[in-house]
C-alpha cells in the first residue's frame, strides 16, 4: 500500500460535449492546470449520464466522480441538464442515505467559456476527495486483487 501522503485519488469527470468539454479544452488552451488524476470522459449531454456509470466508476476504483454540463438554461439540447439535475440530485441523496460520502460525487455547471472555472472546480474537487481518502464504501474488492 502506498503511503497516505503520496496517495492520489482517481477522479472521473463526465463532461458534456458542448459546454464543459469545451470548457476543459479552454482551461487547457489557457494553460490552467489541475491535477493529472482527473480524467475526462466525453458524453454528448449531461443527461446521457446514467447513474450506472457513476457506480461503475466507483466499483472500478474511482475515488470521486464529477459531472459537468451546460448551465441550466444553456443546454445544447434545451432540456438535458434539467433532467440530469433531478437525476443526480436524487442519486446523490440516495448515496448519502446509504452512508456513502456525498462529497465523492458532484455536479458542476461549466460553460464553454469557463475554462478557469473548470480548472478551479477540478482543483477543489481533487482536494476534497483527497481529504476523504480512498473510496472504501462503494468499491469492488475484486478490482483490488
Amino acid at each position, binding site marked *: 500500500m502506498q503511503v497516505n501522503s503520496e496517495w492520489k485519488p482517481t477522479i472521473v469527470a463526465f463532461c458534456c460535449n458542448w459546454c464543459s468539454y469545451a470548457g476543459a479544452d479552454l482551461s487547457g488552451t489557457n494553460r490552467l492546470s489541475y491535477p493529472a488524476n482527473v480524467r475526462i470522459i466525453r458524453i454528448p449531454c449531461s443527461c446521457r449520464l446514467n*447513474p*450506472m456509470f457513476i*457506480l461503475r466508476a*466507483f*466499483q472500478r476504483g474511482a475515488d470521486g466522480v464529477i459531472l459537468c454540463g451546460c448551465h*441550466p*438554461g444553456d443546454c445544447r439540447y434545451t*432540456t438535458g441538464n*434539467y*433532467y440530469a*439535475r*433531478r*437525476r*443526480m*440530485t*436524487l*442519486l*446523490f*441523496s*440516495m*448515496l*448519502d*442515505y*446509504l*452512508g*456513502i*460520502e*456525498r462529497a465523492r*460525487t*458532484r*455536479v458542476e455547471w461549466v460553460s464553454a467559456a469557463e475554462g478557469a472555472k473548470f480548472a478551479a472546480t477540478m482543483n477543489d474537487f481533487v482536494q476534497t476527495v483527497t481529504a476523504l481518502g480512498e473510496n472504501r*464504501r*462503494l*468499491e*469492488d*474488492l*475484486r478490482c483490488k486483487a
Partner: protein
Amino acid sequence: MQGVKEKAIELLRSKSVDRVVGWKAGEFFYDLTPAVFTSVPEVEQSFVWSVFCAANLSKYLIAESRRGGKVAAFLKPCDTYSFVQLVKEHRILRENVHVVGVQCAGMCDMETIRSHGLSAVTSVAEQDGALRVETLYGARTLDRKDALGEKCRTCKSKKLAVYDELLGEQGCDEDNGRFLEVARIEAMTPEERFAFWRGELSRCIRCNACRNVCPACSCETCVFDNPDSGLRNKAAADAFEENLFHIIRAFHVASRCTDCGECTRVCPQHIPLHLLNRKFIKDINGLYGPYQAGADFDTKPPLMDFTLHDPEPSQAAVRGGGV
C-alpha cells in the same frame, strides 16, 4: 366479508367478464395464491378473500389484459395505484380490465406473526379487533396491528385511485408515518447509515423476488439479466453488487414506485427494501412537490419532468433530508 367471492361469482355468471383474477385457497388458511378463475364452480371451490390477501394482483394484469376477452380484478386501495401506473405506462390495456375495488382494513402477514415467536400456527381468527392465533403448542392473542405486514402498518391511503365498481366505501389518504423510519436513518451519522445498510443489504441472496414481484419492474429483460448490458450479475458476488443492484433498482423505479410495499413483503431475508423506495419518494415530495405515483393517469413522473428552478444536487441532502 364484503361479498368479494359473491361478486366474482356474479361477474362470471352474468358473463360480464371472461376471467377473474383473485386469490386461491392453499394448504393452510394463510397461503393464498394469486389465481385466474374462469368458471363459477372454480370460484365456489377455491376463491378466498381474507386477511391474508396481501398480494398485489396488478402486475398479473399486464399479461391478463392482453389475453383476449375481459378480465375482472379485485384490487385493494394500494393495488389500484400500481394498476394506474401500469396503465399509464401502456403495460395494462385498461379497456380489457374490469376493476373491482375492494376496501381493506390491512392485511395480515404470516412472517410477521411468526416473528412474534409463534410457530406451527394452525389458525388465525379475528375477535373484536384482536387476533386469536392457535398453534400446535397453544394459543395466543395478538393485536391486529401486530399481525399486519409492513406495507399495511404504514398504509399510505385507503383511497382507491381507480375502480369500475367498489365493494365497501371509498377511503381517504392515511398518515401512518411511513417516512418516520426513513427520517430516523437520515438522522444517523454517515458511518451509522453505512453500517445499517451494509447489515441489511449483505443478507441479500439475489433471488430477485423483490424485482419480480414489483409492478414497476416490468421490463422485458432486466439490465441485470441481460448479458449484453455489461451489468449482468446473477449473484451478488461482491458487496458492491449488493449495493449496485438495490440502488439501481430503486433508481429505475423512482418516481414510478407507488410504495405498494411488495418488495419488502416478499423478501425472504426480510430486508426493508421499501426504505430505499421511500427515500426517493420522500426526496421527490420534498424537492419537487408532493407526488404519488399512480394517483392519476396524466401527470409526468417527476424524474421525467423538471422545472427551471429545481434545487441543485448539492442541496439534495439538506433539503431532501429536512422535509
